């Protein structure tokens, strides 16, 4: 079930009152929410629900066993079983074909025949998100920072429909306590919820879909497009991927708010970052946090030698890249960011050692933004060949008519970048003002905005890009 659809609107109209009616009885609420979330997920494919339920049972079993085990070795062994189980589950569905084809191709190059076989199955939507959340649960239990909860609580935590298919990646300690301390039904932070849902829809339906109108043909056949079109398509993709993913996250946070639950923020104007490190503190913040706490720090973080720190950074970013998809281009995208983080770290160290002032902010922003956009080329391209064709076209495609540059795409790119530079409190000020209007006025206004968003969006809004991750 996609958020920007009539089906979801009907689903939500049923779940919203049930949520508040059962809230006073946590057990009934959990049953209701579990059924609703599984129904939401089953809308794509009922088979997915079995996988989700299987993952839930496996991780609950591991977490309880870790908690009950007293010997450190047994706890550690169980942790590794849990990690291996989750990675095998993810690997089978998401990475098997990638590794099988890579191995087969490497063998073919060496003149060896290898046939590992391919899996012909649909990638379950959101598998990377809920697998990472499940890993948080068992690792936190092993660390002793979180005690396992009942199966029903964990099942609702993992399947809670607002975050189920594309995050934010929520930690057990952030969400499960909210299940046990139900919000006050007399005080719902609804205006913010409405604003986030409408804002997210605008990002997805209007900005992301409009940018796709240029991005798709340019990346599809780079040689047929001029250099200005290609350049604009690269920037348009930066806006598209932000609008698509931040749009989904924003809707998810808004939907959860209307149900009375708070999620962590996932984006904070990433294109105003003045360094790559700053970018990762603003982009997909819940994934960055996850990678930092469950990968980078356990690898040693920055506690070892300079080489070890750089190795940890690179490994974290490469694995983060691969998390996005089973393709060498994603891995390379991660490596590009890892390299940039290392270079930044070295440059900052040298600058500080020489007592030099930091780089001018505008210059730092310009370099960071263009680096991020450059790296997005590899993220978007289906292959290295396509990425290189796009880059080549920027240098060679001059003097060709630019028929793909439309006012709509230019306006979408300008809007998508412009909103990154709004004052920090702009949206909270707007929401505070809107909250003074009566509920019926807020509802009617939301209806009008929905109409405008729907009318502005091009026909055939594509599914969210991040669903495939």
């Amino acid at each position, binding site marked *: 079930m996609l958020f920007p659809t*009539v089906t979801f*609107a009907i689903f939500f*109209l049923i779940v*919203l*009152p049930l949520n*508040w009616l059962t809230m006073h009885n946590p057990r009934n609420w959990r049953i209701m929410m579990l059924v609703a979330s599984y129904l939401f997920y089953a809308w794509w494919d009922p088979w997915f629900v079995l996988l989700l339920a299987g993952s839930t049972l496996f991780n609950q079993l591991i977490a309880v066993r870790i908690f009950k085990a007293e010997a450190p070795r047994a706890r550690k062994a169980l942790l590794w079983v849990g990690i291996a189980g989750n990675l095998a589950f993810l690997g089978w569905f998401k990475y098997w*074909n990638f590794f*099988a*084809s890579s191995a087969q*191709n490497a063998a*073919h190059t060496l003149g060896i025949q290898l046939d590992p076989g*391919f*899996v*012909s199955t*649909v990638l379950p939507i959101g598998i990377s998100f809920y697998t990472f959340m499940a890993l948080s649960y068992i690792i936190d239990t092993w660390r002793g920072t979180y005690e396992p909860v009942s199966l029903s609580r964990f099942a609702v935590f993992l399947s809670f429909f607002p975050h189920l298919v594309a995050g934010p990646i929520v930690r057990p*300690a*952030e969400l499960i*306590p909210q299940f046990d301390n139900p919000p006050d*039904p*007399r*005080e*719902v*932070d*609804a*205006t*913010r919820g409405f604003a986030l849902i409408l804002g997210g829809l605008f990002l997805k339906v209007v900005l992301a879909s409009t940018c796709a109108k240029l991005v*798709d*043909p340019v990346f*599809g*056949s780079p*040689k*047929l497009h001029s250099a200005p079109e290609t350049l604009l398509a690269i920037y348009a993709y930066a806006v598209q991927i932000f609008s698509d993913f931040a749009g989904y996250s924003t809707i998810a946070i808004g939907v959860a708010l*209307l149900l009375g639950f*708070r*999620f*962590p923020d996932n984006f904070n104007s990433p294109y105003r970052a003045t360094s790559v490190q700053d970018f990762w503190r603003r982009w997909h913040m819940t994934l960055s946090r996850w990678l930092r706490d469950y990968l980078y720090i356990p690898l040693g973080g920055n506690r070892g030698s300079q080489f070890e720190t750089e190795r940890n950074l690179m490994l974290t970013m490469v694995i983060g890249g691969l998390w996005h998809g089973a*393709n060498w281009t994603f891995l390379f995208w991660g490596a590009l960011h890892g390299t940039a983080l290392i270079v930044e770290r070295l440059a900052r160290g040298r600058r500080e050692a020489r007592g030099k002032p930091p780089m001018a902010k505008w210059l730092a922003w310009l370099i960071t933004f263009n680096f991020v956009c450059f790296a997005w080329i590899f993220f978007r391209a*289906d*292959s290295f060949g*396509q990425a290189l*064709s796009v880059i080549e076209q920027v240098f060679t495609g001059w003097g060709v008519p630019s028929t793909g540059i439309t006012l709509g795409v230019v306006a979408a790119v300008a809007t998508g970048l412009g909103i990154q530079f709004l004052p920090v409190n702009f949206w*909270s000020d707007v*929401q*505070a003002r809107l*909250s*003074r209007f009566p*509920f*019926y006025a*807020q*509802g009617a*206004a*939301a*209806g*009008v905005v*929905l*109409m405008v968003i*729907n*009318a502005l969006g091009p*026909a055939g809004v594509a599914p969210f890009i991040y669903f*495939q991750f």
Partner: protein
Amino acid sequence: MDEHGLPEQDPRRRTMPAGHVLLAVFIGLVVASLLNAQGMHKQALSQGPGVGREIAGTLTAGLAGVSGIFQLDEPRILLKAALGRSGDDKLVGKLAISASKPKVPVATTKPVFSATHPMRLYLTGDSLITDPGPTLLDKISNNPAIKPVSTTDAHAATGLVQPEIFNWFDYLPKQIKALKPDVTVATFGANDGLGFTGVAGAEEFGSAAWLAEYRRRVSGVMDEMTAGGGRVVFLGLPIPRDPGLARRWQQMNEIQQSEAAKRAGLVVWVDLFKKLADKNGHYSDYLPDSSGQQQLARSSDGIHYEPQGATVVADAIIEAINQLVTVPGLGPVTPTPAAG
């Protein structure tokens, strides 16, 4: 931020009771539904077959009626007009196949093109042309004897069964007349595995009446594309992952293939079941490239194409073009090692 790093509520923002939240959501959706009724009705009809489509179609038809009576659809109409997209919500209920009497011509000579007299190429159809189109255009981009007359003209979620969603019989003659292609590459059918509704009467997919009507439409669309003397590469439906869908598509492929055969020399039908199957004739996500390396060919839905799949289709199109016309520099394509 609280102790868990979660954003805290801004004290300046007023809250509301859950009952008011529900009412506000309800009011918002009702207002949006009335203002967007036309678009919703069109969207409801573009769904796949089933009870959901029937219910949604009926409900939104009523909604559009109410909206029209009170002129609540005017803001959307005005906004769409201002954006130059007045036709977005248009529902076409009448199917006019102008080439009602198939000419069944047989072309005896192959047109010859050159750099001074380039072949005008037009690529169109549903979403299955979206990926192979640009791949083909990229492959031929350095050939001066071929002149693409537009970028890939794809209309996702359309077909020959639901002209009320997008009427190819209205659209194609205008495009052919305006663009004057020498060769049109077209694909239809991916969204046609459903029953006819509306003017053609309610016919379940696969019935004798359905097959006859579908044949009439395939025949009509082929005639529309060849009406100006151009040739047509008609792409068959590719082998899909879902066996049930495969059975439906095979029925439709048989109709397409036999209609193309009646227009030998003018229309070539491309068998993408065979081209996109693995060495055992089965569906596969992966197919070997020209060097024998396994590459991802099909997208996660088991229908659309990833780059290798698009390459296989583009190569098949080049082969088909070579059967219809003579274009220098458009040489035969090296077959992939294991693909059919």
